[in-house]
């Protein structure tokens, strides 16, 4: 019997894994991607090359990103939404790369697993007023085999003998990592020693980087790997194409088309770069455009929303950074951004103990140990601080933050809130005339209380670090994407989650445990949209594992 044809929207972490699994299972697969292909040779015998390299200026020129002049997003706070303001900002809002390979073209390939407690937080830890907490409809054990398989294919480095017992209890592993760790970065090692002084364990960060290829050039997060040392969506897309999948770029899908009764998708409608409209039929449609764009597409298509939850419960991660200023130069820019991670501050911590007696508990997340500034970033930081002229050059010579500053960064859990959401901006259109996604977002007191509490823990680690002292920028008002918030708060991440949450009850969730829309079961959501809660960990590995699980549910 012929396998069902599958059309996948988006070629990032989720779409690539789904394409790989389904093409290999014999499904005809077509992947539509709105970005360009910056990987010549992808899917050919020659292998994928890359046009990305350690170019700090490309980063400023939206290479691999959607151009906010062509595809703007809009933003408003929840307070502004209550005041009926259409939007207060137009531009980039937590944009991921928009290109073949999606967010994994810029990641530093950190692959922590979510913890067992993350999937059942509502039951285990209880509700939080004002948050829309829910258990996931699956548990760690359901996902574990898919974590294993994705890790194996990506090639993940780590050292199981150094993983803390609490982590192994919450995220049990059936086997060691497939590759040994990279050379430890000096700044990460020094901060790890400080953490040990405080009773915390910093251990080699699991990451999809091949230490036999990686030469620690330092252009990792925010950059394409020029030497193919990092695994990612490209790993899967290459094999998917070789197994028969077709990839088309610059296809801007703006509608999932359904049968007359609205119960079955029959394909998609999309615009090419010149505005030409095309249609493609398919037996199954997989949405993997990332949480903002997938919500936008569902809303444009007017499907999947009988629960009213599409676009709601938008979560980022609430980043918390404390800088360590080292007396001696520690070249924190050499290496894969950072090489260590701390899991001891994931929580939960009782609210009373965290200085927030009004909350039953707060949660943090994994702490990335290391990372710093490169020269151009340092120069721009001085310029933003008001320096110019010889004073700016003096600072580059004599202060040299790039040599002396490394950071601890917590990937803080962000609670789902019904009114933190993506909807369609009522007025703004993109260059193809399609309504742009509007983000309405304000943090919950939970995230801000957690940040205040864990900020002190991170500072204590730095204070215990030999030759270093802490600096953390004070929080300044309500976070906004247009305020310079680099390194801090919800707008400093490209982790975008939760706009089509999964659940067992079609009245309160958008998809089932396999990402199938409750309303239109032959549409599968295979990206961060389905997260019921954000957890406090880098989400890409989990997105991939969920996508693989969803794909396998189709092909077996």
């Amino acid at each position, binding site marked *: 019997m012929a396998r069902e044809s599958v059309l996948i929207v988006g070629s990032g972490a989720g779409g690539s894994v789904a394409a790989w699994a389904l093409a290999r299972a014999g499904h005809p697969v077509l992947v539509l991607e709105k970005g360009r292909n910056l990987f010549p040779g992808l899917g050919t015998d020659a292998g994928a090359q890359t046009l990305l390299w350690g170019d700090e200026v490309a980063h400023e020129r939206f290479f691999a990103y959607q151009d906010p002049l062509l595809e703007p997003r809009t933003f408003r706070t929840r307070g502004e939404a209550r005041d009926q303001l259409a939007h207060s900002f*137009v531009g980039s809002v937590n944009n991921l790369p928009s290109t073949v390979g999606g967010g994994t073209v810029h990641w530093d390939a950190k692959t922590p697993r979510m913890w067992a407690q993350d999937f059942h937080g509502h039951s285990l830890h209880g509700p939080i007023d004002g948050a829309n907490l829910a258990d996931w409809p699956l548990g760690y054990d359901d996902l574990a085999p898919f974590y294993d398989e994705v890790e194996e294919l990506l090639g993940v480095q780590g050292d199981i003998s150094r993983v803390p017992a609490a982590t192994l209890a919450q995220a049990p592993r059936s086997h060691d990592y497939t590759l040994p760790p990279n050379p430890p970065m000096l700044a990460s090692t020094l901060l790890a020693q400080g953490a040990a002084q405080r009773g915390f364990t910093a251990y080699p960060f699991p990451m999809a980087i091949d230490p036999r290829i990686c030469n620690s*050039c330092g252009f990792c997060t925010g950059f394409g790997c020029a030497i193919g040392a990092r695994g990612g969506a490209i790993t899967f897309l290459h094999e998917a194409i070789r197994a028969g999948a077709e990839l088309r770029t610059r296809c801007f899908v703006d509608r999932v088309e359904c049968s007359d009764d609205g119960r079955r998708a029959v394909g998609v409608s999309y615009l090419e770069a010149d505005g030409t409209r095309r249609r493609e039929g398919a037996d199954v449609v997989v949405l993997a455009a990332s949480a903002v764009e997938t919500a936008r597409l569902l809303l444009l298509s007017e499907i999947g929303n009988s629960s009213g939850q599409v676009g709601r419960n938008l979560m980022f991660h609430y980043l918390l950074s404390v800088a360590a200023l080292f007396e001696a130069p520690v070249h924190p820019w050499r290496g894969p951004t950072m090489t260590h991670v701390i899991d001891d501050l994931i929580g939960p911590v009782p609210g009373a103990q965290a200085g927030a007696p009004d909350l039953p508990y707060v949660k943090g997340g994994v702490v990335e140990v290391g990372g710093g500034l490169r020269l*151009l970033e340092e120069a721009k930081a001085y310029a933003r601080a008001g320096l110019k002229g010889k004073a700016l050059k003096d600072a580059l*010579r*004599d202060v040299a933050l790039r040599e002396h500053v490394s950071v601890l960064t917590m990937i803080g859990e962000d609670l789902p809130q019904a009114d933190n959401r993506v909807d369609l901006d009522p007025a703004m259109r*993109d260059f193809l005339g399609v309504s742009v996604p509007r983000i309405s977002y304000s943090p919950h007191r939970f995230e801000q209380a957690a940040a205040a509490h864990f900020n002190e823990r991170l500072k204590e680690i730095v204070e215990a670090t030999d030759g270093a002292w802490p600096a953390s920028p004070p929080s300044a008002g309500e976070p906004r994407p247009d*305020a310079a918030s680099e390194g801090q708060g919800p707008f400093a991440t*490209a982790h975008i989650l939760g706009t089509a949450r999964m659940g067992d009850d079609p009245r309160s969730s958008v998809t089932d445990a396999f990402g199938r829309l409750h309303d239109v079961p032959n549409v599968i959501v295979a990206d961060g949209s389905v997260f019921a809660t954000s957890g406090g960990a880098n989400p890409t590995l989990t997105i991939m594992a969920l996508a693989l699980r969803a794909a396998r549910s189709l092909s077996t």
Partner: protein
Amino acid sequence: MTPSELRTLRALTARLLPGPPEDPDPGALEAGAAEAIALLVGAFAERQPPIHASVGGGFVPLDRVAELGWRIRIEGSRGLAEREFAGPVTGLAETLSAGLALLDGRSREACGAAFADATTGDQDGVLDGADAELARFVRVVLMLTLEAVYGPPQYGGNRNLAGWTPLRWPGFTQPRGFTAAEVSEPDPSGESPPRGDGAPSEALDELRARLPDDAGWQSGSPGSQSEAPGRRPDST
């Protein structure tokens, strides 16, 4: 960009990042910052618009979509329907041209000479006395100048690695990268950048006091809101 505008831009960038004799290391003039900015503004006069550099030289061709975005960013929306779907946009070319004229006007008012003909002292006086409009323009040029001097030389600035060499910044080091010892161990003494007195704590303290909340410690924040080049559609 006209020769006169380029001359003014050179003078401005020289105040934003001075070179010898005022500063011991090469500055914007030596690194070719103004020329690199002019190259960007004139991108569409080039056979391969110099927007996204290839590591081996040359530039990655823009496709139809990327070209539209960059034409809007540099040339402005010019009242064209295909560029004004999200409102009018002032292009970088017009921003620079108008800003340089403004700078010259302010210089003439202040000291009776065009900016490029004024003494460095008078130039600094004009910049220090800038109102919001002029300050906004200077900020755009400062960010472009930093990219030109401290960014990769493929974009036409950082000539002879004038931005990197004195600071011992290696830039993109592939295929060499760094050895395990270079990653994990302190550098042998004397090889560590920067030069200076090797005791940065006082300078760090001083700087820490001066840095506002938004100085930005974290590397690689993706898609960050760049001040330059170009402008986004106005909020409505």
